């Protein structure tokens, strides 16, 4: 008996998803529309980082907004104040974010909710630094007039150009994480999530692997932060409160814990839904809250689990008793 969800189907689903994303600007080139879906792509990158922590390693982090902010400010300040080229600043955003994440190494030994609360505390501290250290971050006024992203001589001046750049980053991070998941490192993460004692007995240095996981997630989230800064062209400390951390966590969970595609879908749900509900202005957050509850009740694997179940049902009606666990790892 082979329980693996057919690989070809997984890839078919992923390719369809990215094809739709690539085609979105064809639907409408309206600046506002493109701006919002670009933001969803950017948060897709951050949500992938969260998925590595939560879905692969089982590490509950409520600290990702801090790395998003660190990446954003690093990139904004380097391009604006020190005239760095965008790509260099983009890479630096990942590096600085990674360096700061090393501070978290001691707390990786905390478990479950305790880890969540400690990282929550970290977000609050970083946010306060952004608010109060004007010399570093511009304080509550934030940073204005951040330049457009550019690749060498090409300036990505239009919303559509920025969109495709964000999509390219998302695809690269997605493929990178897919490779990581299917490697010695990825197996170690999964082993730690499933049983720490057994992982230790298999020769895995838990603290080391967990820390590496935090650093990788921080790099990627720092990249997302850089994109965020140059996409919005304006930064404000209140973009990086712990509420943003919670939103990033929701993105990874709504789409299905452990699923890469789920994280991308989750980011679209969390970013687009409130915008799409603007028409019913007053009621939109009421509906948003209700939908969040409903989504979480979709079953153990969120929307990815639902997708896997549906596909399975369509393909082979009623092959009962097959675990969805693997299926959700789309």
């Amino acid at each position: 008996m082979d329980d693996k969800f057919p690989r070809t189907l997984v890839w078919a689903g992923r390719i369809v998803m990215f094809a739709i994303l690539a085609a979105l600007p064809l639907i409408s080139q309206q600046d506002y529309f493109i701006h919002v879906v670009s933001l969803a792509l950017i948060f897709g990158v951050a949500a992938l980082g969260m998925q590595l922590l939560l879905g692969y390693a089982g590490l509950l982090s409520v600290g990702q907004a801090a790395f998003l902010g660190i990446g954003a400010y690093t990139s904004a300040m380097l391009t604006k104040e020190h005239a760095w080229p965008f790509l260099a600043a983009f890479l630096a955003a990942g590096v600085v974010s990674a360096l700061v994440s090393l501070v978290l190494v001691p707390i990786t030994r905390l478990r479950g909710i305790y880890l969540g609360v400690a990282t929550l505390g970290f977000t609050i501290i970083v946010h306060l630094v952004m608010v109060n250290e004007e010399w570093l971050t511009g304080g509550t006024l934030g940073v204005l007039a951040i330049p457009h992203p550019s690749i060498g001589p090409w300036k990505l001046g239009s919303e559509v150009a920025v969109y495709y750049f964000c999509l390219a980053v998302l695809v690269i991070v997605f493929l990178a994480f897919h490779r990581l998941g299917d490697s010695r490192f990825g197996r170690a993460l999964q082993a730690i999530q499933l049983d720490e004692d057994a992982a230790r007995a298999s020769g895995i240095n838990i603290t080391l692997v967990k820390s590496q996981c935090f650093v990788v997630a921080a790099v990627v989230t720092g990249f997302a932060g850089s994109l965020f800064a140059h996409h919005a062209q304006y930064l404000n400390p209140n973009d990086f409160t712990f509420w943003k951390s919670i939103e990033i966590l929701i993105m990874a969970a709504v789409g299905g814990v452990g699923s890469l595609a789920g994280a991308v879908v989750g980011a679209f749900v969390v970013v687009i839904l409130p915008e799409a509900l603007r028409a019913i202005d007053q009621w939109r957050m009421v509906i948003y809250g209700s939908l969040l509850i409903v989504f979480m009740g979709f079953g153990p694997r969120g929307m990815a689990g639902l997708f896997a179940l549906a596909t399975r049902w369509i393909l082979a009606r009623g092959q009962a008793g097959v675990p969805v666990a693997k299926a959700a790892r789309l």
Partner: protein
Amino acid sequence: MTPVLEIATVTRRFGGLVAIDEVTTAIAPGEIRGIIGPNGAGKTTLLNIMSGHMRPSSGRVLFAGRDITKARADKVAAMGVRRTFQNVRLFGEMTVLGNVLVGLHANGRAGIFAALLRTGRQRREEHSMIDTAMQALERVGLAAQANTIASSLAYGHRKVLEIARAIVAAPKVLLLDEPAAGLNASEAANLIGVIRRINAEGVTVAIVEHHMEVIMKVCSRITVLNYGKHLAEGTPAEVQGNAQVIEAYLGRGGVAERIMELKAAHA
């Protein structure tokens, strides 16, 4: 010959309770050592101390002459002391092959960058790991189920999968915590075969077990613990004939004496 694993006056306390009380023993290379004793004798605690999952309150643990008393469990495992757990601790959501590959973690070198770039060396390492893992699965008779999700295996298969995960990295010492618990007669027989084969390949084995038939059949020497104390040690025949051991198992008076009498009558 240096013992491969040496326990030197090890004591382990939990609050006021002394789980292991100044136990000393040495396991020679190539041995199959049984560790037996009534419930609560401290057998699993001793195993946890040997594997580095628990630190002794006092005393020393030596592996091939090196002091590993303070080494972390993953270090001890990487050095070549592997173990299984009492209630089978598999990575349930992973495949059978995936579980065994995790056992090879410490043998690999490929890091995050190598995995991202899929370097030639990383791919070669993956392939050779998969080969090694498949060989280990063949040794325990699970090769056909390599792609099954571990949690959906039958109980007996889960137990030998855990052994495969422990031996895949070619350890010097294999510690088994109640490998026969919950197995039926044919599964137990299969298990005995597996343990003997592993031992024949040069792995020293220590088994904590209640299943006396398995212990007596497979072990070359047996250590008996009682209330955390080292009670007796010797070949299966010596231990079986030891009055103190029988007393510890069956309690003073009545049954114990009756059995001794029966034995004497038969002899």
